[in-house]
């Protein structure tokens, strides 16, 4: 029972991190109709910047600058590439983000090499026990911060003028444009927000129990893709649910590995994809995604 609760808590905290990434993914998709395959390497960029800058700038400064760098990178991608391709088919847009991803990821992997860069989190690698359930402080803080950020996002999305503008242009871009909503600006802001979310996720993703920044972080970040797809690509709530589901599934699959040995070791890393495919079989647009209606 303790093990179950522990896995549940750890799964939720991992899921909260995934939710942050998936949320960024969904925001970008809603604002500019792009499925950003760049997101994995953006996250790695954030993690790398924080790790490299924490020596000269101190932890807090490194985090701030790291977030700015990630957001700036997302902004530049939007301005110089995505914005020029407005109205292009979804597949072309996806492919161009893959191109960006190749370049960014190659450069980061080249810089990181085989090393594992350490991020000096002030909370270190210690664990806390809540009623007999162990969780690392990093994950606990991650869960709280992610919860706050996501809540703040939902409030902004609902009430702020940016949120309204974004929802309007996601609903019907043409009408929104006619009403005076500047779509370029909405889309750029969406990329910036997604970049910041990815940066925050990076900060916690490389903390304990993960050893630090290595190229393997990219693979972890990729597991947020199933989270976004599973919740429904155009549903912000879905990204949250999807993230938590994937986090839980991964945590349980890893925790009960001994009982799942017939599926092979390391099945936990694959389980997000299995869950995603299973869900898509039943609901092709994800759990909360808008169904495509075709009028003839």
């Amino acid at each position, binding site marked *: 029972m303790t093990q179950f609760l522990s896995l549940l808590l750890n799964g939720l905290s991992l899921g909260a991190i995934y939710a942050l990434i998936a949320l960024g993914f969904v925001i970008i998709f809603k604002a500019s109709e792009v499925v950003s395959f760049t997101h994995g390497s953006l996250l790695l960029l954030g993690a790398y910047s924080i790790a490299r800058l924490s020596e000269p700038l101190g932890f807090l400064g490194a985090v701030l600058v790291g977030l700015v760098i990630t957001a700036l990178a997302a902004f530049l991608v939007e301005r110089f590439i995505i914005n020029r391709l407005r109205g292009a088919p979804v597949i072309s847009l996806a492919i*161009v983000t893959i*191109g960006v991803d190749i370049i960014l990821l190659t450069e980061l992997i080249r810089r990181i090499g085989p090393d594992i860069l350490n991020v000096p989190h002030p909370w270190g690698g210690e664990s806390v026990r809540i009623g007999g359930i162990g969780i690392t402080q990093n994950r606990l803080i991650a869960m709280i911060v992610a919860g706050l950020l996501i809540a703040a996002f939902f409030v902004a999305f609902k009430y702020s003028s940016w949120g309204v503008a974004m929802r309007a242009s996601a609903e019907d871009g043409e009408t929104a444009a006619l009403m005076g909503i500047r779509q370029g600006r909405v889309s750029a802001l969406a990329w910036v927000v997604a970049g910041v979310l990815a940066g925050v996720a990076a900060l916690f993703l490389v903390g304990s129990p993960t050893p630090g920044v290595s190229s393997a972080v990219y693979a972890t970040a990729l597991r947020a893709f199933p989270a976004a797809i599973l919740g429904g690509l155009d549903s912000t709530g879905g990204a949250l649910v999807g993230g938590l589901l994937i986090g839980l599934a991964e945590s349980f699959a890893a925790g009960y590995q001994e009982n799942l040995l017939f599926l*092979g070791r390391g099945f936990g890393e694959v389980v997000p*994809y299995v869950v995603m495919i299973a869900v898509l079989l039943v609901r092709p*647009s*994800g759990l909360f995604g808008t169904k495509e209606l075709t009028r003839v």
Partner: protein
Amino acid sequence: MSEQTVSPPAGATSTASRGSGRSGPAPDRRGSVVKWVLLGLLLVFLLVFPLYFDEFWLRTGFAVFGAAIGAIGLNLLVGTTGQLSLAHAFFLAVGAVSYSYVSGESGGLGTRAGIEGLGLPPIVGMVVGVLLAGLAGLVFSPIAARLRGIYLGVASLGLVFIGVHVLNTWTPVTGGFNGRSAPEFSLFGFTFGNSDPQLFVLGVPFREAERLWYLGLVLLIAAYMFARNLLRSRPGRALQTLRDSEVAASVMGVNVQAYKARVFLVSSMYAGLSGVLYALSIGSIAPESFGLVVSIQYLAMIVLGGLGSVGGAVLGALFVTALPLLFQQYADVLPLVSAPGQGGISAGFAARFLYGAAIILIVLFEPAGLAGIAQRLTSRFRRGRAPARGGPATPAPEQPGSAPTPSVRPSQGSDTR
């Protein structure tokens, strides 16, 4: 409505120029004669290539042939039918593993226990590899047929990770983490190895590399012809209509689900064959050879070559596959590129930078890819403009719209998302 958007760009120059209506029938015929002469010269060049070039070039060539077959298959799926798939590495793996398992020996030279193999003739292994890859595609197609556009892209991403996991885990068949060796190919007693039988052609010893070169060439030509004919046939038209609009296709009597399933079948059979050739060219298989990077490389090939173009896929495969090998070979001559661990950019990285940037530029400025550029040049040449004759080697991307290039982008509004 489908007629105007579906003309396959590469090689189909005669169709395209007829559509443009500018050039009369006479230059058209002259153009096709030129085309056939060029094709003949290319074929002769490829046939005598092993007599003049050393093993490095032959091995590179064989890798390109294998990759080109895979790229043609992926292009049928992504370029022609508009189904974004990142699962190609998975189907390659199915082909490669099936070949190694069916034709490999149990025990594997006694060094690695626990690896099984059926020991059947390699040709059987190759056929089984292709069929099993096709079967895997067919099994995945019900999922694929339900998903549209980008959902399919990410779902297929999942397949790659599941595939790598299986490769790592299912040791008796796949060799596990370290992989297993792939058996030498042979056909009716003629081995594609270094000896047995000894063979000399015009005084040049025909060893493994030379023999494999011809094997790859023959298979690539067959794969190319099949895809070309498929695209020009009724099913090919149906697939292109499917890309432009599923609704229009189904209204016109195209069975959408069935055609999606079939194109998945064909595409993954191509991937299976490509996987077998990959196993032959490397001589062994390992899980890391079938990861996401490989899927992305194949996507890069078809985007660079030009979506929907068979010839373009071959060009793209040449570019993406040969580039890192060339960089590696000439690392000490090229600026910036260096051998691993010497400060500069290593060959693999340099190649990745280059094709990553190429993808972005192609999507931004020339969505028809290399095939589109080539076609623009030939259509210029055909109209007999002086500047084109002067410098056909510099494919300066000119203003869009100045040449009658058919768009290979799926038409606007087709993406029902």
